[in-house]
């Protein structure tokens, strides 16, 4: 590294006289950088970046600039090199100017050098797009139009380099991707169709570069008009690359995985192109070579990427998962879970996660392949990526349909999860709560109790107000699963969280604009409302909750509407023993306007909603039959003058006196209502006093008095 200092001195020299010497020095430095990563880091540690960047001065010798660009490109190949210097001072602007190979500073006989420099610069930029900020700064310095020009230059290498830089700019940056997708090339064409033609280029490298760029644009959602082109051109191109025995084979599976990751239809399409057997044979072939030649590591990346592609294909469709099992690649996947390479372990875990999204696989092939032990082992992995995909897989392994649930619980998985919730990163914490939620799904009371003894309700309470909404959602789902099916289970949750705290949390969640939070919060209520009289009364004592439920009955999502109606159904469920409690609730709900709202939902466009509404209204009807309904009877008496068809049971023109009289007489006549506080209930809840007197009278009448169920 002593030479290195000397070389650095040479290129740092201020005089421009001996640019040839400088060029030579830069080239020698570059040759170091083409070695391994530790060489590169040694170079950068000695401060070589700044002088190299200074060599890019556009007024300088083009040969020197080209050499400096090449060396810088080699250095930035290492992701561990700091990108800071490049974005400081004027370096970025200088660099971007060099993209302009056809500028006014055009010098005869130097086209080739200038063009090559531009390619190198494009490649450097591609390697310096790690953060949104970097992407934005590069775009902000005017690189994009110059890259477009390079893209349309027709020169093969330049086009590849431009595609590389554009891809890096649009990757995971929807805003910038949108901007670039809307730009126009010189002839007025948008970039996407132009790049699509390059996907059919004869050079595999060009095809890969073009496919990669379109992949990132597609996942950013900015070229929806090209969906069918992606399906018909990009997907088959990438699948065919799996069988090319050249450099593109290594990267292609990862691009493929990236492209199809979120799209079920693309996963199916790739599956139909027989990608699964191809990937399976790559993986088993790499394993075989590793065994035979013992040169471990050379094809690690290929194997990792292929595993990732398998994980992508089998993520959403059972048919695709079946194909992976049939390709007999599972033993290789399980072996890869203990591979020395971090990337391979994580990718293998992704595969098992995808495959374990199936009841059938959980019951059969995954048990046969013995994934439990290696998976459990990975919980002690030091790599966060491996840990997160291992914990994600475990969410499925602990389901009740999985025969591995019991044995992995015996290994102490719950305690592991609890520790992770305390100390893990947010992804791992999310997975751990998710897993516990899945674990108590349909579980017996003693399993729930044992889990919560280890987990602790105070921890659950904290998670319910976690900074991450996703974690809140899982915690709420956990409460829903805990307080399910049996009164004693609901009691556990009540005493664990304290019902004041529990309902305050639910009340808060019901005001959120998040479908999943809303649904779980509502089903917590649904489940609690199947419990004892005390459980039901606890809900009734929260006007805020009742009001939210009422409001959500008109939610745009049918699933939410169904959930709200279930709350009503359960709160009004006819119960012989405690008919009075049911009646009290009906009265309160009716006076809140629930029945009217249900009537309105009678014509809901969703069949499921209408069906549930029928049940709920039936409960109100039953109540009415038994206790009579003040307003209804009054309406009948008044001859329903002025009432227009079925909109409401309340009449428009009845007087207070008739209402009371009718109601009383109806109730007494039926002889079912004892003359006690309950009579007041009927009167107050059902009629139209509408004045101060009632406001004063009701509190004791409606909910306050019937306290016989209180504990």
């Amino acid at each position: 590294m002593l030479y290195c200092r000397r070389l650095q001195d040479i290129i740092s020299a201020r005089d421009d006289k001996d640019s040839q010497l400088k060029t030579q020095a830069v080239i020698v430095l570059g040759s170091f950088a083409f070695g391994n990563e530790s060489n590169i880091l040694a170079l950068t540690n000695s401060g070589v970046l700044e002088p190299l960047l200074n060599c890019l001065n556009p007024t300088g010798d083009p040969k020197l600039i080209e050499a400096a660009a090449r060396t810088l490109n080699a250095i930035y190949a290492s992701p561990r090199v700091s990108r800071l210097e490049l974005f400081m001072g004027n370096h970025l602007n200088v660099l971007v100017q060099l993209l302009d190979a056809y500028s006014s500073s055009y010098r005869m006989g130097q086209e080739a050098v200038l063009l090559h420099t531009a390619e190198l610069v494009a490649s450097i930029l591609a390697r310096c797009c790690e953060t949104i900020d970097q992407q934005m700064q590069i775009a902000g310095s005017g690189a994009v139009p110059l890259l477009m020009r390079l893209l349309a230059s027709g020169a093969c290498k330049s086009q590849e380099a431009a595609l590389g830089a554009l891809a890096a700019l649009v990757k995971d940056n929807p805003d910038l991707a949108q901007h670039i997708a809307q730009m126009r090339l010189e002839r007025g064409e948008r970039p996407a169709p132009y790049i699509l033609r390059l996907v059919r280029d004869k050079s595999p490298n060009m095809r890969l570069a073009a496919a990669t760029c379109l992949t990132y644009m597609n996942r950013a959602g900015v070229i929806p008009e090209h969906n069918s082109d992606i399906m018909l051109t990009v997907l088959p191109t990438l699948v065919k690359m799996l069988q090319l025995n050249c450099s593109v084979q290594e990267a292609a599976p990862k691009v493929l995985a990236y492209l199809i990751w979120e799209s079920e239809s693309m996963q199916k399409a790739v599956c139909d192109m027989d990608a699964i057997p191809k990937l399976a044979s790559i993986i088993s072939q790499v394993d075989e070579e590793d065994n035979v030649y013992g040169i471990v590591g050379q094809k690690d990346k290929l194997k990792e990427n292929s595993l990732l592609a398998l994980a992508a294909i089998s993520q959403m469709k059972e048919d695709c998962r079946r194909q992976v099992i049939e390709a007999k690649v599972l033993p290789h996947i399980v072996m890869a879970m203990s591979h020395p390479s971090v990337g391979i372990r994580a990718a293998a875990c992704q595969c098992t996660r995808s495959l374990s999204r199936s009841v059938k696989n959980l019951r059969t092939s995954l048990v046969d392949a013995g994934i439990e032990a290696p998976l459990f082992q990975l919980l002690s992995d030091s790599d966060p990526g491996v840990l997160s995909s291992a914990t994600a897989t475990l969410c499925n392994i602990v389901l009740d349909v999985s025969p591995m649930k019991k044995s992995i619980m015996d290994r102490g998985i719950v305690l592991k999860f609890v520790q992770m919730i305390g100390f893990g990163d947010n992804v791992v914490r999310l997975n751990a709560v998710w897993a516990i939620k899945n674990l108590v799904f349909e579980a017996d009371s003693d399993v729930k109790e044992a889990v919560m003894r280890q987990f602790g309700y105070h921890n659950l309470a904290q998670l319910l107000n976690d900074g991450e909404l996703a974690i809140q959602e899982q915690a709420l789902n956990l409460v829903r699963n805990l307080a399910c099916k049996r009164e004693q289970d609901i009691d556990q949750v009540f005493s664990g969280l304290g019902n004041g705290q529990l309902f305050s949390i639910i009340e808060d969640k019901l005001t959120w604009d998040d479908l999943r939070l809303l649904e779980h919060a509502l089903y917590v209520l649904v489940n609690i409302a199947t419990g004892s009289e005390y459980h039901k009364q606890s809900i009734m004592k929260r006007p805020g909750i009742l009001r939210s439920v009422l409001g959500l009955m008109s939610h745009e999502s049918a699933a939410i509407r169904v959930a709200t109606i279930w709350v009503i159904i359960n709160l009004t469920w006819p119960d012989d023993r405690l008919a009075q409690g049911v009646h009290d609730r009906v009265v309160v709900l009716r006076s809140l306007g629930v029945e009217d709202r249900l009537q309105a939902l009678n014509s809901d466009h969703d069949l499921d909603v209408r069906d549930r509404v029928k049940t709920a209204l039936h409960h109100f009807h039953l109540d009415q039959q038994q206790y009579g309904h003040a307003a209804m009877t009054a309406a009948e008496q008044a001859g329903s003058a002025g009432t227009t068809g079925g909109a409401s049971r309340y009449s428009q023109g009845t007087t207070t006196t008739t209402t009371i009289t009718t109601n009383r007489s109806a109730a007494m006549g039926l002889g079912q209502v004892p003359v006690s506080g309950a009579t007041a209930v009927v009167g107050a809840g059902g009629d139209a006093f509408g004045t101060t007197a009632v406001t004063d009278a009701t509190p004791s009448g409606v909910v306050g008095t019937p306290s016989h169920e209180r504990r």
Partner: protein
Amino acid sequence: MPVFKQVSPSTDSLPTTPSSDASPQLLCTCPPYPFDEHAGDALSTVSAASAAGSDNNHLASGGLAVAAPLEQPSQQQAPLSLPRRHVATCAVHSSHAMALLKQKAKQQQQLQLERQREQEERRRNPFAPVRVAPSRTFDLYAGSQFRGKQRSGSHSYDVMVDIKHVDLNNSFLCGYLHINGLTDEYPELTTYFEAEIIGPKHSFLTHKWDADELTDEEHWTLFEPFKCFARSVFNGLDGQDSDEDMSDSNPSLRSSRHQYHCDPLKYHHQNENVVFMRWKEHFLVPDHRVQGISGASFAGFYYICYNKITGEISGYYYHQSSEKFQQLLLKHVDERSFAAFEFR
């Protein structure tokens, strides 16, 4: 296809970072209340309920709902179009609208933060698990149970079905089928089955499992609700005939029935009261490795018809060498509480 936030397409200016404007817009979801006269009872009950709950600290400290109705709202103050009952129960029009708006604004900010975090997370790990929402329709949901009988000749066996996973998007569901007393060796026999839900993905015509069109026809037509499909499924698209048949009926009815009749390809259970399925058993539970069982076989499959409204399932077992038309009759086991899991 992933959907991202759309930024305005512009070719000459760089996109700006997403604005942090989170001005909340509450929508009033209250149905119109045509009658003002009864506003009072809603108000009084809200206050009643809250007063009754005042032993709870949270409430006593003045939750959002409590204070408002206690004031005597005068008829004049409330806008004419907003009856008081509506005011009492609606977030938009209650007198606490400001507090609610502030709360909403705060929540929206957090939601927005959450979205940004998601985007960052996505950037950090573009291969994060994609969520597959569990689906349900009526009594077809994970955790649902059906009980009933299977009749075979003069014998009848108790049957229970446990639905374990439903993926309507893929016209798929699966579960366990328990049957009692079929053989001495296995007094209780449980199999894992998968369902093909007839619809856009699976046709009425089986084309496998040794079932030809004749088999399909003689089984599907046993289901009353299938009758209207029968001809179009098994005789091809006989448009002319059906036109003739219905020439005398009312034209609007005809057009709807016409489509119904002639295009089983457009059939989707979403729009119907019944769900047709094929159930195929695959292996024994708990030990999937057990191969043959003497005296019983699950080599065939069931034609299934589930009625959404009655919650009943009827089915017919078919296997080339088994007794024909063994009937399955099941009823949904009522359940009023619902847990939920989700694959990761």
